[in-house]
Each structure stands twice: as C-alpha cells, then as structure tokens.
C-alpha cells in the first residue's frame, strides 16, 4: 500500500492524529513561552541566576524523552484538587515537552535583551523610563526577533519529541510511527513521520516569516504586525477548540487500555467492542501504553480494564521468581492482585503468548533444528537479536542462556519489532519473538520447542478494577463471556491480519466478535 493510498483510506484518523499532534505542540510551546520568557527576563535582572537556571534547562534537554516520561508517570501532584502532574496521557507528555522547549526560549530571551545596545538603554533611562517601561517599550520590542527565533527552535523540538508521546497514550502522529515499527510496516512509519516533518517545516516557515516581519525599520513591517498577532492567536485558538472536542469525547464510563503491540491493540478492541455492544456503556480507548504503563494506569484508575499475561504479572509486576505450572501462576496472581491492588483477574481468553525462540526456515531444515536444545549445540557462530525487554527480565536472557547453555558470538539488543526484520535479513540468526506473532507466519519462521520448559506460561486474561466491576456488573458478565474465546492459532491469525494484511485492528476485532456471535 502506498502512502497516498493509506492517507486517502485513513483521512479521518490522520486528521485526528495531526490535530492531536498540533494540540500537544501548541499547548507545550505556549506554556514554555509563558514560563520561559518571564524567566529569561528575570535572568537579565538577576544575572547571578543565569548559570543555575540555564544549566538546569540544559540538563533537561539531554534527558532522553522516554526516560523523562518514565520519571513523570509515577508522580502524583495536585493543585486545588486538579491533577497537574503524573499518570499517562497528554498531561504528562505536555510537561515533558515544556521541559524540552524551555531552554531555547529562556536562552534567547536572555541573550536578546542582554544584547540591546547599552546606548539605547541609557537613552531610555535618561528620558525617564522606569525599569518596567524600559523593558516593555524598548528591550522586549528590540529582543523580539531573537525571542521568536528561540520559539522557532522550541517548536521544532516539540514537533519531533511529541511523536514519542504516543508511548504514553498522549496521541499524535507518533501512533503511526510506533504501530509501523511494531508491524514492520514502512508505510505506517512514513504515515507518521512525513506529516510530522511537514508540521515541523510549516511551523519553522511560519515562525521564520514572523521573525522577519517584526524586523523593525521597515514601514511595511509595522503595518502587517497589526494583523499578524490576531492571526496567530486565531490559529492557536482554532487548534485548541478542535483539540478540546477531540479530547471531549473522553468523558465515558469505561476506559479500556492496552500495551503497545499489535496483539494488545486487537485485544483492547475486542474488549472495547464487546463492552460497547453488550452493555451500551460508553468506552474510551487508551491504547499503546508502553512498558508497565498499562498496569500503572489500571492501578491508578486511569483505565478500568486491559489484558495482562499471567507470567508477566508474576515476574514483572509482582517480582516473584518464575513458576512453570499455568494453574499455579494464575492462582498466585489472582490472590496477590486482589490483596495488593484491588484488581480482579477475570476469565482467561484461552491462549498462551509465551516467548517463541525463532530461526529462519532454511537454517532449521539445513541444521535439522526442532528443539531449542538443537540450536544451543550450533549457536557458537551465531548472532542473536533480542528486544530490550527480553534482555532485562527475570524469565529472559540470563536464565535462558544458562538453562540451554547458549554462547552466542554476538548479541544485538534492539527494538523487538526490528528483530524479525533483522532475522529475515540475516543480520542475526536467532531471535526471541512472541508465540502469537503474526510475523512468524508472514516471514515463514520456525519456532523451536521449549523442551526444557524454561519459559513460564503467559496466559492472556483481562484484568479489571474491582470497583468498576462492582459498579458495572454487566461488564463482568461480558468479560466472563469472552473466556476461552481465542486459541494461539486464532490469535496469530488476527495478528497477521493486522501486521501482514495491514488491516485496521478495529475492523479485525469486529469481524472476530461477529464470527463468534458476541456482537451482531
């Protein structure tokens, strides 16, 4: 599918994501201006502060955005009962974006004012201007060009960084990029990257035009200046209003979450559509939550339900040692979740999404590989590609290598979705994927049997907030109805429909629910 085709088929979604993106950028840049310009002015009045303040802003710029998000999410800061910091969604993304946008704005305000000719400042003072009059009538107008240049840099930074905000459900064009990375789909990646780049270029051009227009000393400049600011304000207000209506849809009763990979988005859609169809409750979708964000959002009450895997809950959330018996794992997480988080594990969906150790089909044939033990024997010359997740978790690489006696020539740590492509392109020879991954059949990869039963079970189960289920017993009934509805093969098929056939998760989920007779 070409990019143009994709855009024409998904115009509405593209428009929504673009507006979300513009909203994030406009709000964060706006707040950064409101904070940065006064701060920059303050620094010109108290030069002793300039080193620590600029130093802080400098450091903020060097913090990687995902790390900054991770740091902000657990915070819980309220101002007059309104949560202003912490959690997932646009709020946290905006805080992070503001921190990134501050440096160029503070620095340019400070430099712009400091560079005003001392003779002009003396003239103003000598004519009897107070400090405030000097600032507003002389220094700020003269520094405005430099300040706008700073805003220009800040805006472009925000447009770029806002793509990463999709990782914490803040929306924006980053959704396409993340989905594309997951599905190994260049068209999707471009669908996010191209509009984002266009926004960045557009903002740069527009602000560059403003910057040139306010260059004083041109009669024309003074005249168009009068029309310029109302125009800028009108555009910003327009974005805010549209964005408000987009966000305004989210006052609904049930919030369904998902983690940030294809299967989770499909499962999220299945839950959401089943609840919508069976109960008539309004459902808000908060998908694509990275890492443990879905769990944190559920515990914090920002979502009401999402699908978790028993093994993941046991190891990554409860931090217990691995257990291999599926019944035992489910029993433990059920008890612990009820006790510690007041969260309820409902009916298992029926499939186990465990780690799948994958090799290329030709290697499997040539070397007669069926079990992981077979691969361990020939792995001395091999390069392995593992996701960051697999490398760091308790049931991941260290125990795996020890159990089977692997000694790879090289291990390349990369994004999980990229490992498939790396395997197909022979940049690595073995990867750890997911057993339900649609890409396994798409690329004709061979899954090796876990003959030493190293990997714990990862049964997929909807986890919901107890208070939500009490308030809406009809939701519990729907979740019970979904019990045992999916086999591994079916899940792989659904994943392939999205990753391989490039269909929309929403559509795929609808078709599946229809076929199972859950919704008409």
């Amino acid at each position, binding site marked *: 599918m070409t990019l143009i085709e994709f855009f024409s088929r998904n115009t509405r979604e593209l428009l929504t994501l673009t507006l979300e993106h513009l909203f994030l950028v406009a709000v964060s840049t706006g707040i950064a201006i409101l904070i940065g310009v006064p701060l920059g002015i303050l620094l010109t009045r108290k030069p002793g502060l300039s080193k620590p303040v600029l130093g802080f802003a400098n450091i903020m710029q060097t913090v990687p955005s995902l790390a900054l998000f991770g740091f902000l999410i657990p915070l819980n800061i309220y101002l007059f009962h309104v949560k202003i910091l912490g959690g997932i969604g646009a709020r946290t993304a905006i805080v992070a974006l503001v921190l990134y946008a501050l440096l160029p704005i503070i620095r340019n305000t400070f430099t712009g004012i400091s560079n005003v000719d001392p003779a002009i400042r003396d*003239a103003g*003072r000598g004519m*009897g*201007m107070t400090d405030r009059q000097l600032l507003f*009538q002389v220094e700020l107008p*003269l520094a405005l060009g430099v300040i706008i240049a700073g805003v220009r840099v800040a805006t472009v930074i925000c447009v770029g960084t806002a793509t990463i905000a999709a990782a914490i459900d803040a929306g924006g064009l980053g959704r396409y990029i993340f989905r594309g990375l997951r599905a190994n789909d260049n068209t999707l990646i471009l669908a996010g990257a191209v509009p984002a780049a266009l926004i960045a270029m557009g903002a740069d051009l527009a602000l560059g035009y403003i910057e040139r227009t306010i260059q004083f000393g041109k009669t024309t400049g*003074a005249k168009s200046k009068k029309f310029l600011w109302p125009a800028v304000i009108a555009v910003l207000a327009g974005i805010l209003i549209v964005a408000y209506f987009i966000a305004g849809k989210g006052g609904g009763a049930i919030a369904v979450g998902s983690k940030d990979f294809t299967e989770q988005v499909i499962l999220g859609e299945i839950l959401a559509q089943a609840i919508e169809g069976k109960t008539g409750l309004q459902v808000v979708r908060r998908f694509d939550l990275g890492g443990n964000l879905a769990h944190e959002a559920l515990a914090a009450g920002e979502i009401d339900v999402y699908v978790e895997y028993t093994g993941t809950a046991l190891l990554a959330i409860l931090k217990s040692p691995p257990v291999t018996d599926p019944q035992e794992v489910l029993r433990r997480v059920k008890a612990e979740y009820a006790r510690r988080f007041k969260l309820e594990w409902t009916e298992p969906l029926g499939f186990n999404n465990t780690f799948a150790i994958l090799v290329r089909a030709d290697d499997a044939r040539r070397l007669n590989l069926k079990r992981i033990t077979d691969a361990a024997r020939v792995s001395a010359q091999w390069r392995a590609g593992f996701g960051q997740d697999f490398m760091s978790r308790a049931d991941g690489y260290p125990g795996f290598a020890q159990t089977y006696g692997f000694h790879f020539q090289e291990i390349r740590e990369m994004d999980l979705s990229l490992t498939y492509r790396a395997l197909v392109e022979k940049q690595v020879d073995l990867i750890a994927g997911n057993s339900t991954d649609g890409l396994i059949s798409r690329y004709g990869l061979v899954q090796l049997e876990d003959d030493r039963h190293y990997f714990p079970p990862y049964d997929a189960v909807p986890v919901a907030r107890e208070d939500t289920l009490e308030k809406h017993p009809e939701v519990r009934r729907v979740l019970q109805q979904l019990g045992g509805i999916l086999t591994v093969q079916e899940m792989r098929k659904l994943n392939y429909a999205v990753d391989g056939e490039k269909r929309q998760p929403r559509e795929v989920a609808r078709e599946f629910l229809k076929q199972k007779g859950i919704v008409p």
Partner: protein
Amino acid sequence: MSDNKTAIEFSNVSFTLPDGKTLLSNLNLSVEQGETLVLLGRSGSGKTTTMKLINRLIDPTAGTVQVEGKRTIDWDPIRLRRRIGYVIQEIGLFPHLTVEENIGVVPRLENWPAERIRERARALLTLVGLDADRFAARFPRELSGGQRQRIGVARALAADPPVILLDEPFGALDPITRREIQREFKTLQQELKKTMIFVTHDIAEAFVLGTRIALLKDGQLILLDEPQALLRSQHPEARAFAECFNDAQDSGSRA
C-alpha cells in the same frame, strides 16, 4: 543670559568606581539658567560622567549635585529625568519606533493625549527643519545621519524640559552637515532659551555654541570661562585645545 539664577550646581563632587578608579574629583561648577555650558575635554576626561550625574544615571560618591535647588539624591530619578531633555549620539534613537513615535516618547510616558502628542511631534519636526508629512512615519534607519540628529534634538525638546543635556550629539556627522546643524542649533538655542549642557571634544563646536566652556582633564576642572578666555589661558591643556582651534582657523583662511 536673562537672569542669573542657578539651574545646576556641583559642590565638591567626586565619582569613583567600585574598583577605585576616580573618574571625577572635587568638581565645583554652576550652570546659570538659560546658558549653554560646554564641557570640553579629551576622551576619558570626565565629561560624560559629569553629565550622567545631572540626570542621576549615576550618583556622586562624594559631594552634592543640585538641580533647581534640590539635591539630585532627593529627586525621584524618574521625575528628574523627565524634566531634563537628553540627546546622545545618533544611536540613541529607538530603532523600532517611527520618527513620530520617537519624538513622542516622553510625552507618552507623561500620558499626554494621543492627538496632543501628534501635534507636538509635527511642530517639533518643523522646528528642526524637517517636513512633518515626509518624515513622521519613517524609521530611524531610513534617515541620514543629519536627519537622525535633528530628530534626537526634537525628541529631547518634546516635553518642553527646562534643562537639556547633549552628549556629543553631532560627533558622528560629516564636517559639512555638522557645520550646518550647529548653525541651526545656534538659532534654536537663541529662540528657546533653555539651559543646556553640551559635551564635545571639538573646540570649534565649543566656540560656536558655548556661552561658557568648562575644560576638563583627567576628571578635574581646569578652566571655566567664556570662550575667548580659553585662548588666553597659559594652562598646557588649554593651550593644546587653543592650538587646534588656531590651526583650523588658519587652514580655513588659506583655503
């Protein structure tokens, strides 16, 4: 000089920088109402420092400066400055304001009604010999050096202050324009009868414009007298300036 009332008085004034460098030492000087006192001296002799002490851009580290009989440190600096017109080298015009807006700065600070500010600006443009219709809407960078300097003078006159300070106002002009504008300024001076303090290092300019000349060297007042007296003085610094003046006159007569 119409009467002999004192407009500005320096009594034992010194100004020393925090690092101990003395820019002005023990200056005693009074400026009569309506006269033009020229502060003459080389670069670094203390002329500009003397001037900044009058409108309180700096305060003396010793002694007192009185303006209209009141010590400057007792004046509210903002009120004081708005009673004193200030002309500095052409750079002092605000580049982001039109000619009319530049002239109207002090009246605007004083909250004059817009119509009155406009009329005043146009009247002053005419007074300094510029066509109001042609120049009011221009920006400083669209003007020649001489035009800018005329605007600078007009701006200082805007709120009709009794005292005007001029810090080498014509320093950056070419000699011909400079001569022209000095002549115009002389006429203006006789018309307006303002008290003026005029800083220059050009003795010819001092002769044309000064009622009296104060000669400064290394922060000290060497001589305070009428222009002709400077030519007769035996002080080496006065002789050095006098020679410059005579050279210029000689070459002028040969030409």
